[in-house]
């Protein structure tokens, strides 16, 4: 837990908005160690998703450095950033983003198709990932036949199947009821513990916050508070 795998240094992100510019992130400085279970919390427009996108190399900072797995995001070519995402970063989206014409198995397998795995290796990994999320019996179903909770579990399996170093989850519980939200969060927490994968969330859902070990409050694109809640919980529990 002592190795920095994400380093955000003086990151500012501005977007053109008509004739003006909108500043989504202002001078952000953050470090994340391997195996953290943290999240960006804040109201809409506070910059949570922008920060997640930069870490996921889907976007790059206007100023400052974002270093992920030792790679400076703004210096990566398209090919290099695609490789970084494919090998080391898993995404979980609010609306699952499952490919509708593929089965559950094929959706999860997709990330592995871009790597040089044999069919047997892929099958083993996919079935294992589906087992983590409790959907091994639904491998042949199409996403349209799944409930919201099941769909998000498939998305988690797809993110985890390649055993990435980092999983970025953008409002993963927003479309789920409380029971399903707790279900997927427990699954992610368990995977975090078992595989030591770093999980970063963008959320304003109280249910998600209950599970986070570190909460970074963002306001108007700035870090308002960076709190380690594991320690607080430990203290509260001991009292």
């Amino acid at each position, binding site marked *: 837990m002592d190795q920095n795998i994400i380093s955000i240094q003086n990151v500012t992100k501005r977007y053109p908005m008509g004739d003006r510019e909108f500043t989504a992130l202002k001078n952000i400085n953050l470090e994340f160690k391997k195996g953290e279970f943290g999240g960006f919390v804040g109201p809409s427009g506070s910059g949570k998703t922008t920060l997640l*996108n930069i870490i*996921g190399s*889907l*976007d790059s900072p206007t100023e400052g450095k974002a270093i992920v797995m030792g790679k400076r995001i703004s210096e990566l070519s*398209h*090919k290099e950033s*695609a*490789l970084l*995402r*494919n*090998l080391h970063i898993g*995404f979980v*989206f609010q*609306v699952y*983003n499952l*490919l*509708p*014409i*593929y089965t559950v198995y*094929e959706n999860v397998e*997709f*990330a592995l*198709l*871009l790597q040089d795995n044999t069919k047997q290796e892929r099958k083993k990994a996919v079935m294992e990932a589906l087992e983590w999320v409790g959907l091994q019996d639904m491998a042949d179903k199409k996403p349209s036949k799944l409930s919201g909770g099941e769909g998000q579990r498939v998305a988690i399996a*797809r993110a985890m199947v390649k055993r990435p170093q980092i999983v970025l989850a953008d409002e993963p519980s927003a479309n789920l009821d409380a029971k399903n939200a707790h279900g997927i969060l427990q699954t992610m927490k368990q995977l975090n513990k078992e595989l030591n994968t770093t999980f970063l969330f963008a959320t304003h859902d109280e249910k998600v916050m209950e599970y986070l070990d570190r909460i970074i409050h963002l306001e108007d694109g700035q870090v308002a508070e960076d709190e380690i809640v594991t320690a607080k919980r430990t203290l509260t529990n001991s009292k």
Partner: protein
Amino acid sequence: MKLAFRLAYKNIMGAGLRTWLNVGILSFVFVLIIFYRAFLIGWQEQGIQNSVAWEYGYGQLQNSDYDPADPFTLDDGHGILPDDQQQNLVPLLLRQASIYPQGRMMPIVLKGIGVDQELLKLPTQKLRESAAAIPAIVGTRMAEAANLKEGDQVLLRWRDKEGTFDAANVTIAGIFSTQVPGVDVGQIWIPLRKLQQMTGLQGHATLFVANSNFVSKNNDGWRFVSQQELLKELNAAVEAESISGWVIYLLLLSIALLAIFDTQVLSIFRRQREIGTYISLGLTRNRVVNLFTIEGTMYSLLATFVGGIYGLPIFLYFGTQGIGMGGIEEMGFGMSSRIYPAFGFSLILTTFVLVVVSSALISYWPARKIARLDPVKALKSKH
């Protein structure tokens, strides 16, 4: 690339009706292009074969005063070619004349041909074998027009070399069937010697049909018209059809390609989130371009397959049964009344390449646009 093919196949199969509409229209165009081009090739090949076999041989040595397009030149357009220069040539003497079937006058061209010739497919042995004073053979079209049957006699009136009219009955010794109206419509064939005798033009000929061994020399008063020149009219007619054909099937192909282009352009809007997801999963831009280009191209591959399923039986049927072309003989050159389309491997291959390459090109441009989508915006898309 293998992955791109696999994904593209999966994607277009998953698109359901949209795919089959594109494939349907493209396969129709594919089959139609092959069919029409095969028809033109068949028409040309048959026309050439028939014209060579029945009329043109390997070229003609024509009297320099004779113009095939001007019937008035028949009066003076003849001459004598020394015997030693007549090797590998079949002489024909052509004269204007009239026949009177059932009492009505019908202007004709009276053609004299050597009864022993074997170069042209005309059944001149019937002239040789007939015991009639003036035996004649006619084609089926002429026989029908004049209501003549084998064994019938019909009054023939002609003029000799001095312009004096003479008349006699000719006996129909045979009726032949040919696809070449140029040796049939409005003409009667009689023995050359007989015609020379009737007109007082002993030794004269209007033209000579050459066989394959003939070598053209400089003959005073005669000009050699090569087989290619004789076939020029036929080739020009086929060429004109071919050009209009190209216009038609380029239009059809454009419509079919427009459907693919439309599908690809729609993908920019309707599959944004899917594209964003591909990119988030680690697909490079090149791979996205490949995927969408292959998707577009795969329509044409599927169209070829589907077109093969219903097109091959059609090709086989018309390739063996031919297509009836009623009234086409009016065009005047070696046009068959039944054309057998020539479906060759190279024709199918070139059409296949044309369709596949054009669909790949038409898919590439939208695919490049797709790959340039901002993944963040794409992932936010509602589609």
